[in-house]
């Protein structure tokens, strides 16, 4: 598993850009690559189209809040159906958690359509803004909800449409 991910790193550095891979995580059960946000779409497109990887299945996009550190991580779980392999990509986005500036990432909807709902969920609950997303509305929470509930520094509102939220 870790040799595969190291090999993938060399390939990406050669094929995409020398800055495309920021870091590599080899420890743990699931090695992962840290991708530079600017090259995320190029890396994903390469992984999907290259016959040696053929990563055609996006399993999951999970946003992780590393409060009190000033950054978020978005984790892409990819799988290849013909090769029966799994790849994990991580993207780190710095953000100071101000209410006016959300952390921003490019959307991968143009590569895997399933990302559409996953990214909407990440936006809805964690407040990650995906640029070039076709329809980035809230998905689980009501459209007029304030704040992003899965953030660690989130506080429940006292009322929602005059309905008390807390007892």
């Amino acid at each position, binding site marked *: 598993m870790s040799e595969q991910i190291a090999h993938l790193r060399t390939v990406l550095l050669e094929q995409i850009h020398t800055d495309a891979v920021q870091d590599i995580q080899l*420890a*743990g*059960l*699931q090695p*992962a690559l840290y991708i530079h946000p600017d090259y995320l779409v190029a890396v994903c497109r390469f992984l999907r189209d290259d016959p040696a990887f053929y990563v*055609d*299945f*996006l*399993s*999951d996009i*999970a946003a*992780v*809040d*590393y409060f009190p550190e000033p950054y978020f991580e978005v*984790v892409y*779980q990819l799988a290849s*159906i013909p090769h*029966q392999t*799994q790849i*994990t990509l991580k993207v780190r986005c710095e953000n100071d958690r101000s209410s*006016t500036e*959300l952390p921003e990432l490019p959307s991968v909807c143009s590569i*895997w*359509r*399933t990302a*559409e*709902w996953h990214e909407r969920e990440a936006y809805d*609950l964690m407040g990650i*803004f995906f640029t070039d*997303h076709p*329809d*980035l*509305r*809230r*998905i*689980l*929470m*009501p*459209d007029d909800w304030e704040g992003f*509930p*899965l953030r660690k520094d989130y506080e429940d509102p006292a009322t929602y449409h005059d309905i008390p939220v807390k007892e």
Partner: protein
Amino acid sequence: MSRYNEALARYQEKIDSIASQEMVINMGPQHPSTHGVLRLELITDGEIVKEVIPHLGYLHRCFDKHAESMSFGKTIPFTDRLDYLSSMNNSHAFVMGVERMLGLDQSIPKRVEYIRVLVCELNRIASHLIAIGTYGIDIGAFTPFMWCFRDREHIMGMLEWASGSRMLYNYIWIGGLFYDLPVGFEERCREFVDYFKPKLQELDEILTNNQIFIARTANIGILPADVAINYGCSGPMLRGSGIKWDLRRVDGYSVYPELEFDIPVGEGKMGQKGDCWDRYKVRVDEVRESVRIIEQCLDRLMMDFKRMPDFDPRALLPKKVNLKAQDYYVRAENPKGELGFYFVTQERSDIPRRLKARGPSFNNLSVLPALGKDVLIADLIAILGSIDIVLGEVDR
């Protein structure tokens, strides 16, 4: 903040400015054919659906947020409530992930693993019976629904006997089981299998090969394989489109590599490959395969891994789950497709920093706007039923 609200404004603009011959219809959230509290906003032109806009979240119970506030063992009952029709499969997937992070997964006794697979497959049959039965009723066939629920009740009774609860079991625990199977369970289970096999034959006669049913489902909602993969569809949705992709075989977790079963795929027998009938047929065939797995499990449980008086399924239960800071994505084959849990753990803590559930229904449903373009309203019901969603998992 205006940039962040652009999409919402665009959506409202679209609803407000529909053409004069078009009409917006809300299907749900209280509608028997949406299988729960799903609201579909349809833009229709007469009987033709021009666009489907799903609205989710009516059953959102903050699974991710809850899981961040309690230890792994306490989260198991919450996983039961994700896809409440297949609780065993959910907790099996979750428990597998925690065990792998603990490094316990190789030392689980075989008897425990076989019991897990046995109850999971029983639960898979129960889940598919609901899918088949309610699909029949969506199309207008009432009798198969009653038959399926009658047979499902036997499974519910058996699982209640084992776990003490009818639908939300909390039976599979980290490192073992709640209890060993009750005495006589294996014999009762074999009785059920013998009773159930001819019933599947009857189901085929009344529904699968029913001309009215075929007319309503064949060539409806055709989902090509590449579209299915691109939309992240898994389980019977993906297999209905002809892709042989079953995580029980691909990942070979638990004792599935030791068991014999086939992976049914859609063949386009009644119409084009990947239509509603194919998805339905895959489920019916999967029930047969599950029965085969159950028979093999029972053989092993009664011969090789017999009940012993000193066998304790709780022997390996960790007193406290103490993990390193790491992250892991576990996936398993739920009746509806790939169920995944993504764990991000903290150093020396049994409370995860982040736990994300990837529900198969959520992803399978996301293909509906693509399938529901330019179809009849009645066909939309057939398409939605063939996706087999459980809102508990869509909304989490």
